């Protein structure tokens, strides 16, 4: 059977081209986020051009030591996107938050001058940053619930974490959804998941504090998992590899610390969209999670009869 069921944007001119910045984590410890982001955006009719010669944004360290350094490292990458004349998709929320912050500083002439004084060539601040949620939201704009070839029948809580909705003033297609974001909810409803309400959408898991105050990570992550279970969720869906590492990879450490072993799997939003598009779990990297995630996903994926008969 042809792949005709894969969603094609209604107008041919709608094919989107974005620059792509994976970031350091997506090259190694979180490669499934990279795999699923690329596979899903490609299946949705988007072309991604990886920035040639991209460098680290400085993470949570550069801005903590020197503000100009923390803005200049991302500005270099923004300049690479400007050279291509493209907006840039950044799945890692730590990267996107730093680049969005830098983008905003570049709009202020005095601050831009300070930043550009450290670069080989100036960044103009013309290329916008899209988080993976912004990119999916745009790429799936024409898709309604039931349009995709498969449905993912699963009760989930959408977990945005802290950085995905911050800083408040976004550079991309932001809707000022900072405390009660719904952009991921909308995507999950389109793939057929039941999105449950809960109060921990934007609570921080402790992020990279695993290197400095690990207890903060274990306590906060245990709290998030407990809230998800109490909300009745079968899985947590997220879009941040730091959250994924803390909630999935550190599950045994959390059990040791809190005395509670949580069994629910964690998925990247891209993995669920990919499953609804008909991509196999190993194409999406679902088999690379620490807590068993492949079987629950397989059990939840069901063909959408209407889409096949079309």
């Amino acid at each position, binding site marked *: 059977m042809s792949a005709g069921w894969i969603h094609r944007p209604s107008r041919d001119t709608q094919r989107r081209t974005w620059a792509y910045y994976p970031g*350091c*984590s997506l*090259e*190694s*410890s*979180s*490669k499934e986020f990279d795999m699923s982001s690329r596979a899903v955006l490609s299946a949705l009719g988007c072309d991604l051009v990886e920035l040639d*010669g*991209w*460098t*680290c944004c*400085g*993470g*949570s*360290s550069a*801005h*903590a*030591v*020197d*503000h*100009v*350094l*923390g803005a*200049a*490292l991302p500005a*270099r990458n923004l300049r690479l996107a400007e050279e291509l004349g493209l907006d840039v998709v950044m799945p890692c929320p730590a990267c996107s938050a730093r680049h969005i912050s830098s983008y905003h500083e570049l709009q202020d002439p005095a601050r831009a001058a300070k930043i550009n*004084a*450290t*670069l*080989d060539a100036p960044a103009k601040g013309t290329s916008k940053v899209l988080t993976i949620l912004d990119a999916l939201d745009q790429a799936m704009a024409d898709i309604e619930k039931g349009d995709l070839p498969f449905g993912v029948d699963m009760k989930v809580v959408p977990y945005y974490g*802290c*950085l995905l909705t*911050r*800083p*408040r003033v976004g550079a991309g297609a932001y809707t000022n959804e900072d*405390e009660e974001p719904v952009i991921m909810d909308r995507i999950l409803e389109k793939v057929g998941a039941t999105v449950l309400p809960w109060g921990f959408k*934007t*609570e*921080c*898991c*402790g*992020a*990279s*504090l*695993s*290197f*400095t*105050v*690990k*207890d*903060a990570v274990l*306590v*906060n992550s245990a709290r998030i998992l407990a809230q998800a279970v109490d909300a009745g969720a079968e899985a947590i869906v997220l879009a941040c590899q730091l959250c994924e590492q803390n909630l999935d*990879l*550190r599950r*045994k*450490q959390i059990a040791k610390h809190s005395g509670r072993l949580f069994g629910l799997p964690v998925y990247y939003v891209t993995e669920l969209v990919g499953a609804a598009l008909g991509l196999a779990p190993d194409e999406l990297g679902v*088999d*690379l999670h*620490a807590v068993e995630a492949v079987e629950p996903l397989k059990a939840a994926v069901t063909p959408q009869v209407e889409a096949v008969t079309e």
Partner: protein
Amino acid sequence: MLKIGTATDRIIDETLDAIRAESGQDARLCYQCGKCSAGCPVHAWFDIAPNRMLHLLQLGEFETVLTSRSAQLCASCFACSMRCPKEIDVGRLIDAARNICYERGLTPVDEVAMRFHRTFLRNIRSHGRLGELMLAAMHNMVQLRPFADVDIAPELFFKGKLHVSLGGKVKDGGEVERIFAKTVGKI
């Protein structure tokens, strides 16, 4: 170190003006509602709650804030900044505090975060991108806890997620090194 009540109003005003010029944030606006501390995920591990940091700045006790454990450990989640009714970007203010602490070579109450940042930045300065394995290994050595997180290493290793790159360097034409040289100089 300035003690509470010893800084004159003029010194306090001038210092808060300087902080505002650097960070765009005015600590004088805070009226102690406490929302920043209520929402802070690291609050329990802080020595000074975020709202108290603001109050200490208003009182002129700058060095206490600059060298506090709180300023060092802040996770930069920006929950405080989002929730401030006076629209103070508290996270940005905390960044300014630790920037000044680093720049002046002050010794913070807790040095673990600063050691981590140094290890992280040295890593990207020499390679252009972060080698996560190298970062974890170096940080554990600096912290004299060589076996921290070894329990999760096999999980990463057997799933091909430990990307071991030795001596690889991104082709950036040396620009990253020049950015470091022009900002922090030697780390």
